[in-house]
């Protein structure tokens, strides 16, 4: 027992409870959750060990563990827990905790506050929404009420500038989080930091691409959660499919938007004139389809949550709602905007544009603190965890 003892933080349990680990103390460490978990394997131990760490106040053990992010919140563990300790909720709460801890110092307490206080969350949402509103009120151009002149009302380059500024900040926050997570989850692991790091470089890259393909593109792990639904009909109804639609919808829109920024000359010139882009134009088409996927996925997810049909969606936090609702709103306002544009209703178009931009702004601002954050952390965690396994087995 030469190891230096870890310090226990007696307040940690309460922190996790406040973040949604509703019944974490009830756990008596029987391991049923781990045994029934479709994703737990010999190498990664969750949810039980995460819960034990939580009970014992070993927060660093939690933050150091990539396992936390392997969970897809399918709810099998909560269903079979003999003490009704809701392990899935604790796993969720721990991820919330981790998101707040990986964020840069100022953002860290902000994110904790939006998890812990509903009122704070609402107020901050309203305040954040005020930024684009004020900007639009202050910067908008002439309002042409006879025909729709969208980019006369709000010049496109403003959107670009604001978007890029916001993007840089958000990207910074996220990169900080990823960096911190990488640091915490890999410290103490030989081969990750310090010596021997580069020696495994190629292997790392292989693992990285594997992770990207399996866990990000087709999300194999989530599909494993629905192992009982093998038929296509069931698959289409599965959580996996819902998630895939949201994911690919989001990626699609991200690409179209980015392309809009990167090659403005290709699109923005005809756009200025309004009607010249045909629906069949590839980028446009991609945007439309992605939007459809996103609206479908978000709607399904919201319906699931409203129905509380499954354990995984029976406990929902503001931040979970926020991301979904904003996604749906972004989609809906986007399509409404197009309709308003085509039916040539100028005032409605301007109003919808304002709303759409506010929603999109909000969506990006809160992204690192909402469920969206897992989109970044999970792939990294899976990659680290795979790399760890590799180190341990070699």
């Amino acid at each position, binding site marked *: 027992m030469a190891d230096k003892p870890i310090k226990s933080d007696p307040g940690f349990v309460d922190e996790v409870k406040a973040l949604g680990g509703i019944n974490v103390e009830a756990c008596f460490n029987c*391991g*049923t959750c*781990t045994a*029934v978990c479709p994703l737990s394997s*010999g190498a990664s*131990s969750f949810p039980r*060990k995460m819960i034990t760490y939580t009970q014992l106040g070993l927060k660093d053990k939690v933050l150091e563990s990539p396992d936390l992010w392997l969970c897809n919140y399918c709810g099998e563990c909560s269903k079979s827990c*003999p003490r009704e300790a809701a392990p899935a909720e604790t796993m969720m709460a721990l991820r919330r905790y981790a998101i707040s801890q990986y964020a840069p110092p100022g953002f860290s307490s902000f994110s904790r506050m939006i998890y812990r206080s509903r009122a704070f969350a609402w107020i901050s949402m309203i305040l954040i929404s005020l930024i684009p509103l004020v900007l639009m009120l202050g910067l908008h151009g002439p309002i042409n009420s006879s025909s729709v002149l969208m980019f006369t009302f709000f010049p496109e380059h403003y959107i670009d500038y604001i978007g890029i500024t916001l993007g840089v900040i958000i990207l910074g926050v996220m990169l900080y989080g990823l960096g911190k997570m990488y640091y915490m989850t890999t410290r103490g692991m030989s081969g990750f930091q310090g010596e021997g790091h580069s020696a495994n470089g190629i292997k790392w890259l292989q693992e990285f691409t594997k992770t990207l393909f399996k866990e990000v593109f087709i999300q194999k792990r989530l599909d494993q959660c629905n192992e009982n639904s093998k038929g296509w009909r069931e698959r289409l109804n599965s959580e996996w499919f819902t998630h895939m639609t949201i994911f690919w919808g989001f990626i699609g829109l991200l690409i179209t938007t980015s392309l809009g920024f990167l090659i403005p000359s290709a699109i923005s010139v005809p756009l200025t004139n309004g009607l010249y882009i045909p629906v069949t134009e590839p980028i446009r088409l991609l945007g439309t389809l992605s939007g459809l996927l996103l609206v479908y996925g978000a709607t399904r997810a919201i319906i699931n949550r409203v129905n509380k049909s499954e354990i995984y969606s029976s406990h929902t936090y503001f931040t979970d709602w926020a991301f979904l609702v904003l996604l749906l709103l972004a989609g809906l306002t986007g399509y409404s905007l197009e309709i308003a544009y085509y039916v040539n209703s100028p005032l409605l178009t301007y109003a919808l544009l304002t709303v759409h931009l506010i929603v999109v702004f909000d969506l990006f601002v809160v992204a690192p603190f909402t469920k969206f954050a897992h989109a970044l952390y999970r792939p990294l965690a899976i990659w680290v965890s795979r790399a760890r396994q590799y180190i341990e087995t070699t």
Partner: protein
Amino acid sequence: MTELPEEAYDVLVIGGGIAGMEAAIDLGDMGFKVALVEKEPTIGGKMLLLSKVFPTLDCASCISGTKTSTVSHHPNIRLLTYSEVAGIERVDSGFVARVTEKPRYVDASLCTSCGECEDACPIIVPNEFDFGLRGRKAIYIPFDTAVPKNAVLDLDNCIYCMQCERVCPADAINFLQVPKAHTLRVKAIILAVGFKLFQAEKKKDYHYGEYPNVLTSMQMDRVVAPTRPYNAVIRPSDGKEPQNVGYVLCTGSRDRTVGNPRCSQVCCMYSMKQAQLIMGSLPTADITLYYMDIRAYGKGFEEFYRQSRDMGVKFVRGKVGKIEQKPDSNLTVYYEDTEGSGGMRKADHDLMVLSVGLLPNTEVAGLFKNVKLDLDEIGWIRIMNETRSSVQTNIDGVFAAGCATGPKDIPDSVLEAGAAASQCAAYIRGASASITAHEVPAGI
């Protein structure tokens, strides 16, 4: 239905298991007249069916066998087997109980338990005393050590072929028997109604009843008992001797998903006991117990636990999440070795035993007609004031003992039966006879 004239007793004991027998014998020995009512055709309860019992590993029938024979020959005990209490009413300071004695269709006074009828009967149905592991006939002697040892005809399964009637050397078969209605007037009642076993089917992930090699612990106890159904320790699917047996402790106990958050008190110990017995008959077999906490709390229990470990019984701390069957009828269990490095583990066993918990016989509350018997949240009989008396129910003059008030091991059940007898006697004596002051030396 034949109405019989009212009979008077001091005490009615309901339930002829170890607790009921012990209470009846204690009261009988004190000179009280006791009526003992048992719904099965034989007395001895579940204990008589067990193999050896922890922690001393004495054979269950050596102990309960002496009790069954004492009960059946005791001058102060009237034994009514195959009889059910139809209703109890409080009348004045006592009770009137109506008891229906079911027809055995065999004249017990003539039957010599020779078994000829059993041999002749063509109908085979699962034997409830072996928990379905083997069959019995429609007319049958429940088991070798049964008391009273008489045949009983199960009319539901009888095809009226009359073979038994033809072969019975004592002419004891009587198809014309009708139920008898006894009316018992008693001063006090002892409820020793025992327990029910958790229905393992309810724990779906363990697939009991679906996979042949998943047994309950009660079935396993029969398999290792000297009176065992197969006359060997073998597994049901193919009759192979199991070489790697796993036990799932806390099946139906400490589990809110099946509605029983309580611990059943006896499963850890009986599982270890079975493990030791299996090792005795199959020395090369591996036995693994999947447990959460080993509750070896009674006298000599911890020592028994240590002995089991020394014998090589494997203890794995982790509750089994699920059991899956492989094509060769072997079973894979999924669990977390919570004391190891963690993570989901799989292990293969050729026989799995579910250590099922104990649940109450809640029908007992319905027996009382004009008074209400208080049960606790789960349905065990509630003891009024446990810091005053361990056996007094909420009804004056009604006592409960053994597993009727909660899961209990045999030593505790026996003690509680003694306690019920004692307080019952105190109640009757205290209520009827005036206590004469004897000359006692001055105290404080």
